[in-house]
């Protein structure tokens, strides 16, 4: 009886956390409106600009908090041009204004371009932008949070050797065990321990960034896991891991499958494409799911500004809450699917013998 009570209270706590996430979503309506009110009121509201501003990356971190005047946290800009590396603060950059460094730089649609003397974009000169953008900063934030969480969890494992988990440790352990028992072991099998680091890191990295992305106010509200560059990097790492752990059966399956010789013309290219397409699907899936979720939520909020009426807001908020609940599920689901498919592909690459299955 007592145990059930404790369990119920845990569920209550969890539901409170979820409710907090959802409630926080209502705030950007206010923050958003402040931001929009600050910009010129004559132009009709364009939801595309607002949404893509959120979905994309930025050189400075715009902060809109309720009851606080919106401001921007400057972030370092790191550029590599033909004149070498250049570092300066993003507070120097403004739309349609030239910054004079080693080169002259202008900001066009939040992209840094080299300008000529007249202040126009010089398309002939290339600039490689390695800036610490909003997404990079938020990624580091997510990593710091994970460091803190798992640092404390791992130290409590050291302190409580052989004892039952407690507190944060007991919250995280089921997730860790879930990744091990339901993701790694069924897909990879006995060799899973070698890949546990990658799988766990992927899972928690995607999960924390999905969840932080759901928090609408600073320091959340970014779209990291819905950024193609991030998913590209992750799936590229996965691609390397899969192919470097591929054993002779894996490569045999690709280059000399047990099929009639004339089919090789079709099969070998298909298999080679398959090497790329598997991580490519991972990349697109995560990117599309998260971005789509963010776009829907922002579109629903934008309805208020499109109709320019407060009367729309209840309907909008109800739908946003509904979408957020789904997004909360998606946050977990996508982290799970990415990890699960990674484990599956690794499992296919390290499988000891493929059997005669391709004769069917």
């Amino acid at each position, binding site marked *: 009886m007592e145990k059930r009570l404790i369990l119920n209270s845990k569920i209550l706590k969890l539901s409170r956390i979820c409710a907090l996430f959802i409630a926080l979503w209502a705030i950007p309506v206010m923050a958003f409106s402040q931001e929009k009110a600050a910009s010129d009121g004559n132009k009709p509201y364009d939801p595309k600009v607002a949404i*893509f501003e959120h*979905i*994309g*990356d930025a050189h400075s971190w715009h902060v809109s908090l309720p009851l606080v005047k919106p401001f921007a946290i400057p972030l370092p800009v*790191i550029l590599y041009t033909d004149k070498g590396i250049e570092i300066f603060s993003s507070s120097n950059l403004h739309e349609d204004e030239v910054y004079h460094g080693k080169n002259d730089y202008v900001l066009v*649609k939040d992209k840094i371009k080299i300008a000529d003397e007249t202040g126009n974009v010089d398309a002939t000169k290339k600039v*490689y*932008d*390695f*800036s*610490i*953008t909003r*997404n*990079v900063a938020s*990624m*580091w934030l997510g*990593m710091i949070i*994970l*460091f803190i969480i*798992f*640092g404390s*969890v*791992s130290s409590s*494992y*050291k302190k409580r*050797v*052989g004892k039952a988990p407690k507190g944060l440790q007991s919250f995280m*352990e089921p997730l*860790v*065990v879930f990744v*091990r028992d339901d993701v790694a072991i069924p897909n990879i099998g006995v060799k899973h*321990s070698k890949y*546990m*680091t*990658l799988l*766990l*890191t992927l899972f*928690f*990295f995607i999960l924390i960034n999905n969840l932080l992305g759901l928090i609408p106010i600073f320091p959340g509200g970014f779209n990291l896991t819905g*950024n*193609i*560059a*991030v998913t*590209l*990097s*992750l799936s*590229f*790492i996965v691609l390397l891991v899969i192919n470097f752990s591929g054993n002779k059966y894996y490569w045999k399956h690709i280059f000399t499958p047990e099929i009639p010789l004339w089919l090789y013309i079709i099969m070998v290219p298909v298999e080679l494409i398959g090497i790329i397409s598997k991580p490519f699907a991972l990349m697109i899936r995560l*990117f599309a799911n998260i*971005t789509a979720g963010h776009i829907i939520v922002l579109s629903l909020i934008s309805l208020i500004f499109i109709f320019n009426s407060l009367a729309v807001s209840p309907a909008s908020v109800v739908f946003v809450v509904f979408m957020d609940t789904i997004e909360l599920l998606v946050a977990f689901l996508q982290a799970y699917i990415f990890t699960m498919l990674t484990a599956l592909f690794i499992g296919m690459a390290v499988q000891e013998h493929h059997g005669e299955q391709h004769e069917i």
Partner: protein
Amino acid sequence: MELVTPEIGLVFWTTISFLIFLFILGKFAWKPILAAINEREISIENALMKAEAAKEEMARLTSENESLLRDARAERDIILQEARKLKDKIVGDAREAAQEEGAKMIEKARLEINMQKALAIADVKNQVASLSLEIAEKVLRKQFEDASKQDALVTELLKEVKL
């Protein structure tokens, strides 16, 4: 299109950060956590196995005790039976021996009696014989006290003799 064009800066930073993150978490978080979980699972498994083994041992001991008890009981019965048999045998033997002894003694007594009887009879015979001789002597003496009678006998005897 802008949405699906990866920016080199973010790719670079994500890759670098993720690899460092992977390394640090792997070394300082996943390794000790997984090791601790594994260790605990193994210890729980062991504890369960030990409990199971203890249960089996208990069951084995109980059944062993029972079988020991049963064996002891059976042995006791056997011993008792044997003792009874032995007692019967001893008693029977004793009886037999006593009977035999008795019979032997009776036989001996009989022989003794017979011998004594024979001796007595022989004695009686001797005495009767000597008595008869004495009587005959005395009778003869009495008859031949008179000389005429002696002569008559001799004459008679001589008459019989035919020369």
